[in-house]
């Protein structure tokens, strides 16, 4: 269907549109027009991706700037889904418009997923694929080949050089499958095709890390222009992604391997000195001049790149004392040795980067500045030495990255040395955590560089937390309710068992038999009434294990077994995927199943339980984080000090976003239905931290239920859901045809006019109304147009 938002014609590839989709598009356009950032929450399963894509593509095509869209998602499957939707959208557009637009959309993923080389693609591990690919495609390999030496190269990669560099692949939207097929046919490497074509694409779809992780972003996303539109989808965890991308853990083992790496480097250097000292000399000369070859730095096959150095520093020459290769290796060795010594301490230490640097200087005479250039220097050295088996140097690279980070950032970071794994452990296993406390650091370059950044997800409440944590300002910040023709999901808060004992996963009561029994009873009762699949979320693996064993002792599992198959998520990915497969089979063939999983596990994040795969989701306990973790404590303190976010506020926010994420798993569309049960006394108070669309659907009478009442309500609800429900019932309410949409627009316009008239009549109230409407009070031109439109409809 085709409609206009303000003056922008939007082509939407479905004959019907949801009201919230329309509202979402309007706000998106507002954001793009204003050129600012926004946070938008849209209920899950209401077609967020397609509305986003269709609006932005329309925007690109209509306005002459042709702002590029960078769409970041979290998992591979989500990226693939988005690509497929984009492809369908473009097909619809060309059908509708009658011609094919000049448009290119592409996705980027790791080498492992996109490799065609017959032997490399068979490797299992991603790092091995990366390393082998580099050894076949690096610049010096090609040089050697040209010189006539016998080296292995990748024919798929080298074929690319024969093509025009800006037209490696025809226009259109390329899904991963599509590009793989095209690559196979034309014998060209899909990975490098995508990488090199990125600056010629209208839409790029890839993972967060390509933009947020400074180690990767520098290489992949450097050339993107400032007016790009950046979208982070499924962004409710974005602060954690930011923090992880700048944090490193160093263990004794990695240090040992780093030492080995340094020794290897040393031997390589001495070998090279004998055979080909000219190269080292060249490198040295370049470093003396301080010429950092821009092209070279951005080369695709670079071993690693610099994590987030300020630009002015990058232009500076490498400090004199690490200019020579052998000096640098000695320098590295000294640093590693120092770290090893620090690891021998047997008590917990936490210190800020400046105090770490002071101590370092006192003992090893390593200054801050050369340390800052460590990563950069190592890259250059590895390139000069023409090392091919780069994976051996991975640990060394980690150490170098750590060195650079610790010397670059004084604030917002913390070093925590934990000598033991737990408080009771006897054998030391020291880990040096270098943790980022401030999520704003990693994402700051993104906000600085791009004028419009849109953060969106199905569950991203409370919205104001994100601008606070990530330190940016928004122009639009909106959460949309879900319009429903019938009440298709039933959220309930169960606070008591049938015996009126409060249920809670609070630390003091969580293992009391009465609480465990009540939880078990709730599970049994719900499994009796729920058709097909049911998903249960626990706050942690530990609690899940203990409660399951207690249930086993109480005979609860045997009871549940009569109604449903019971499956459990484990930390092991393969086991879990097997369990999931079985679960799906059981849901499809009518046996029904229960999946017991963890609120922060893999299942809660990426897997959808639509339709029969999930009719009930039960959240046992509030999924708080493990608060005894030192890293979390440090972060809480930092948040309070810096952004004035109180500990309890943050913990509760974090728990509720995970709970909401769990609840959202079960409802994946408007024709879907499901029961959402929050079983903990403490949810009562935290209710308004749930996303608006869930919170609005909770009736006052369903917030403080006991098990039997909840089961009664659920039964009634399911009976209602069993009634026939035609798609036509939704029309005009939760789905709009073009006519409904126009009627809505008219109504909105009338509303504005009425408000303005009122404002004119009593000028005192004028300001108030004007504020909310964002329409120039003088703009009465609409009036006549609208009346004409109305008459048309009447006729």
């Amino acid at each position: 269907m085709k409609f206009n938002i303000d003056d922008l014609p939007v082509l939407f590839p479905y004959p019907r549109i949801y009201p919230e989709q329309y509202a979402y598009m309007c706000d998106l356009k507002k954001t793009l027009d204003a050129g600012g950032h926004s946070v938008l929450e849209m209920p899950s399963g209401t077609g967020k991706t397609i509305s986003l894509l269709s609006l932005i593509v329309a925007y690109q095509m209509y306005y002459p700037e042709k702002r590029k869209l960078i769409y970041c998602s979290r998992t591979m499957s989500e990226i693939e889904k988005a690509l497929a939707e984009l492809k369908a959208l473009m097909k619809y557009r060309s059908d509708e418009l009658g011609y094919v637009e000049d448009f290119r959309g592409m996705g980027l993923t790791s080498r492992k997923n996109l490799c065609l080389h017959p032997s490399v693609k068979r490797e299992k591990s991603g790092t091995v694929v990366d390393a082998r690919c580099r050894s076949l495609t690096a610049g010096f390999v090609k040089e050697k080949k040209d010189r006539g030496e016998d080296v292995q190269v990748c024919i798929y990669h080298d074929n690319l050089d024969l093509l025009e560099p800006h037209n490696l692949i025809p226009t259109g939207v390329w899904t991963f499958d599509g590009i793989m097929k095209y690559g196979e046919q034309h014998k060209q490497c899909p990975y490098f095709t995508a990488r090199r074509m990125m600056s010629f694409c209208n839409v790029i779809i890839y993972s967060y890390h390509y933009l947020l992780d400074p180690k990767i972003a520098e290489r992949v996303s450097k050339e993107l222009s400032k007016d790009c539109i950046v979208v982070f989808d499924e962004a409710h965890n974005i602060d954690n992604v930011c923090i992880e991308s700048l944090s490193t853990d160093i263990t004794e083992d990695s240090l040992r391997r780093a030492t080995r790496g340094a020794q290897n480097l040393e031997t390589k250097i001495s070998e090279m000195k004998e055979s080909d000292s000219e190269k080292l000399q060249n490198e040295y000369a370049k470093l003396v001049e301080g010429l950092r070859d821009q092209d070279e730095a951005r080369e695709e096959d670079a071993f690693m790149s610099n994590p987030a150095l300020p630009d002015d520093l990058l232009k500076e020459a490498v400090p004199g004392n690490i200019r020579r290769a052998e000096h640098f290796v000695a320098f590295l060795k000294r640093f590693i040795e120092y770290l090893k010594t620090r690891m021998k301490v047997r008590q917990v230490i936490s210190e800020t980067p400046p105090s770490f640097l002071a101590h370092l200087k006192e003992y090893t005479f390593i200054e801050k500045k050369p340390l800052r250039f460590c990563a950069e220097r190592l890259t250059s050295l590895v390139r000069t030495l023409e090392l091919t088996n780069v994976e051996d140097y991975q640990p060394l690279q980690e150490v170098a990255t750590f060195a650079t980070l610790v010397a670059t950032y004084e604030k917002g970071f913390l070093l925590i040395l934990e000598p033991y794994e737990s408080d009771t452990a006897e054998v030391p296993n020291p880990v040096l955590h270098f943790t980022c406390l401030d999520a704003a650091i990693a994402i700051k370059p993104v906000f600085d560089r791009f004028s419009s950044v849109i953060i969106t997800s199905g569950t991203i409440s409370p919205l104001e937390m994100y601008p606070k944590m990530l330190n940016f300002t928004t122009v639009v910040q909106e959460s949309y309710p879900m319009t429903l023709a019938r009440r298709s999901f039933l959220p309930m808060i169960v606070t008591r068992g049938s015996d009126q004992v409060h249920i809670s996963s609070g630390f003091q009561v969580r293992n009391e038999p009465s609480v465990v029994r009540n939880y078990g009873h709730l599970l049994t009762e719900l499994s009796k009434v729920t058709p097909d699949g049911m998903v249960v979320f626990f706050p942690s693996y530990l609690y899940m294990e203990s409660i399951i064993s207690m249930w086993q002792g109480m005979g609860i599992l045997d009871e549940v077994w009569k109604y449903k198959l019971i499956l459990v998520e484990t930390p092991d990915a393969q086991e879990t995927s097997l369990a999931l497969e079985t679960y799906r089979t059981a849901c499809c063939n009518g046996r029904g199943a229960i999946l017991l999983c963890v609120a922060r596990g893999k299942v809660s994040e990426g897997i959808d339980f639509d339709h029969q795969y999930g009719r009930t989701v039960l959240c046992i306990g509030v999924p708080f984080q493990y608060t005894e973790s030192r890293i979390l404590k440090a972060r809480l303190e930092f948040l309070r000090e810096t952004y004035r976010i109180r500990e309890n506020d943050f913990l509760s926010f974090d728990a509720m976003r995970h709970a909401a994420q769990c609840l959202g798993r079960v409802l994946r569309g408007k024709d879907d239905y499901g029961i959402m049960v929050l079983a903990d006394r403490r949810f009562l108070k935290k209710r308004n931290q749930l996303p608006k669309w869930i919170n609005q659907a909770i009736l006052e009478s369903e917030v403080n239920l006991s098990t039997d009442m909840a089961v009664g309500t659920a039964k009634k609800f399911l009976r209602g859901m069993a009634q026939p429900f035609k798609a036509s019932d939704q029309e005009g309410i939760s789905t709009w045809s073009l006519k409904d949409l126009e009627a809505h627009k008219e109504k909105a316009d009338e509303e504005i006019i009425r408000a303005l008239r009122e404002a004119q009549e009593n000028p005192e109230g004028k300001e108030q109304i004007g504020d909310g409407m964002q329409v120039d009070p003088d703009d009465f031109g609409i009036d006549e147009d609208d009346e004409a439109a109305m008459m048309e409809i009447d006729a």
Partner: protein
Amino acid sequence: MIRNGASKSLESNPSDDICPVCKSNRYLTPSLQFLINPECYHKMCSTCVDRIFTSGPASCPVRYCGKTLRKKGFHKAFFGDLKVERECDIRKRVGAVYNKRQDEFETLLDWNNYLENVEGLVFDLVEGGKEDKMRAEEKLRAYKERNLGEIEANKRAGLEEIEMEKRRERAEKEAARQRRLAAVREAEEEKMDVEKSRREVLEKLASGEGDAREITEMAQKVVLKKSGARRIASEAILQSNGSAKDPNLTIRGLKKREAPVAEKPYEPFGGVDLAPSRYVLQEDYDSEWLANAKKDQRHAAGGFSLHEYYARTMFEAFSGLGVFIEDEMGSKALPAVPSSIGTEAAAEASTGKIKVEHKMELDDVF
């Protein structure tokens, strides 16, 4: 898991556990401690040191070494790798002599060359052959003799710098501590307030005067108002803390203080310059459109001034140019507390030095 870790640490360096002189090992003597002497960097256990060197200087028991050592010189090695230990000792010696600072050099290139020279010297001392070493030592001595005065001055400057750094750190820690205390106090006050108002409401309700609903509503409003006021106050404190943090903790900083700038005369437009910057207003513009107005005196008679007209038209044509919304948006960044304090505080929180927990009433640990 545990056994695995243990075996790993064993396999890593077995020589760590046996004294090369008396061959006693850690398994039998758990208190085994190794010492080294910076004369020759040979490692031996503390019992051996006591045994051999108590009665005065003796030669090193390691074969082919034979250097004369004293007990006083023995100490524990900081690094596991003794080569690095030796290198660092050498660096200490060299660093005490070659202690120039970057601001003494005119260009970055000179400074880097100097650094490389020093590094080369150290490298010769550490890895070089006998001749290299001799030459390097000689160089070191010569340099020291020549630049004695400068070295002293630089040493003093370096010490001063360290002192300054330490002071700054201490101040930051103190600030963090103060703020934490304030936060705790605030939380307590808030709790007390709530408690108090609740009691008051109960009393009022008990006395039976007035409408029950009115009383409760009133009470709620009061609580809200109070918490709001407190928040504003605390934020004000925060701001003042943030700004009062750095200055004048050091004596060196005093030099740079400037006299206060004389207050400018009051300006109604708040410093906005109304003179056109993007064009120059000319006396006359040649336009067909205006020809009539120029000629006809009747226009001027009514007070119409062409000059005014020019000024206004030009202003309208150029106004709004060069205004970039993005820039203005950028300058409006969120006010945040300097994150240094937060980092400092986080450091302490994670070690568990501070007990925040019992005040926090955390709901859960998992």
